[in-house]
C-alpha cells in the first residue's frame, strides 16, 4: 500500500533532521495533510507505528494538521470549500475550477525532547 511509502519517506526525513550526535528523543513529527491529497490517515498512522520500531523515532507520534479543501471557480471566480473532487461551484454550478488548498502532503517539523 502506498501509505507505507509515505511513512518511510516521513521516517527518513525526520531521522535526517535530528541534530548529529544528539541525545534528543523525537516525540512527534508535524505533518500537513490536505483532505484532497488521497492519503488515508489511519493507514498512514498504522504504517508509521510499524516502521518506527528500533529507530530514532520509536517514541514519536504523528501530529497531523488536516488542511480543508478550497477551490476557485474558473467561471465566476467564487472561492468555496471542496471536500472531494467532482463538486460544482455553489454560485454558478460550473465544474471548471482550480484547487487552491487541500492537496498538501507536507512534513513540517519534528519536536525533540532534549
Amino acid at each position, binding site marked *: 500500500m*502506498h501509505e507505507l511509502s509515505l511513512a518511510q519517506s516521513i521516517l527518513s526525513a525526520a531521522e535526517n533532521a535530528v541534530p548529529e550526535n544528539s541525545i534528543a528523543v523525537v516525540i512527534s513529527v*508535524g505533518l*500537513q495533510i490536505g483532505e484532497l491529497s488521497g492519503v488515508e490517515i489511519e493507514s498512514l498512522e498504522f504504517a508509521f507505528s510499524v516502521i518506527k520500531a528500533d529507530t530514532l523515532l520509536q517514541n514519536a507520534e504523528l501530529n497531523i494538521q488536516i488542511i480543508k479543501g478550497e477551490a476557485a471557480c474558473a467561471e465566476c471566480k467564487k472561492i468555496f470549500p471542496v471536500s472531494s473532487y*467532482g463538486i460544482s461551484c455553489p454560485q454558478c454550478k460550473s465544474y471548471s475550477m482550480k484547487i487552491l488548498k487541500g492537496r498538501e502532503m*507536507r*512534513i*513540517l517539523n519534528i519536536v525533540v525532547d532534549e
Partner: protein
Amino acid sequence: MCATCGCDADGNVTMHEPGHEPEHSHDHDGHHSNHHHKKVVDIEKDILHENDLLAARNRGYFEAKNMLALNLVSSPGSGKTSLLERTLTDLKDELDFYVIEGDQQTTNDADRIHATGTKVVQINTGKGCHLDAHMVLHAVQGMKPKQNSVLFIENVGNLICPAMFDLGENERVVIISVTEGDDKPLKYPDMFYSSTLCIINKTDLLPYVPFDIEKVKANARKVNHKLAIIEVSCTSGEGLQIWYDWLKSKVLTQEPV
C-alpha cells in the same frame, strides 16, 4: 499566517490527532509543566520530495533528449497493453518507441510488447502497487533511448496508488473500458484529476453493455474539466486514428532543446 506551520498569526495552532483534540501552543522555547526542554526542528518538505526530485530529473532527461513520455494508468484489464500493441504495430515506421512495463509479477506484458519488435523493460514491483520515479530512472538508464523518441510507461493496473506518484511524464493517460461502470471517474477522482487524456476502450462492446458513454464523459469532466477524451476499440480499430493524431501532435509540440 506563520510561514513555518501555517498557524494563525496569534500563534494558536490546532493539531488533529484522531481520538482526541489537544490544544497545542506554537511556542519554540519551552513547553508546559515538565522539566524537559522541547525544541522544534523545522523540516518543511513534501512527503514525496524524494520521488519529486527524481521525477524532475526524469523530466529533464526527457527534455534533453526531446522525448515524449506518457504514463498509462488504469484498472487491471482495461486494455493498456492491447492499446500499446496496436499503436506500436501501426506506427512502427513513423516513430521510435520504448516501453516500460510495470506489474507485480511475470514478464507477460513485456513479452507481448517485445513481440511487436519494440525495445521494452519489465519492472516487477513484487508487493508494490505503483511505479515510482526511481524505478523509471533506472529502467530508462538501461534502455539508452534515442533522441526524439516516444516512451510509454505502462503503470501497474491500479486506479488509486499510481495517481500520487509523479514519474516525470509529459502526459498521463487514464484508460477506462466500457465493461466498467460509467461512474468510475467519480469513484476514483484522484486518477482522473491528475490525468491529461482519458481513453475509453472496447467501444465495440457498447451494444452488449449498459455503459452510458455520454455519462462517463460528463463524469470525467466534472472531476477534471481540462481532460481530453478519445473513444477507441483496439479490436475493431475504431477511433485509433484520433489517438494516433493526438499522439503525433504531442510529439510535434515538443520543442528541441
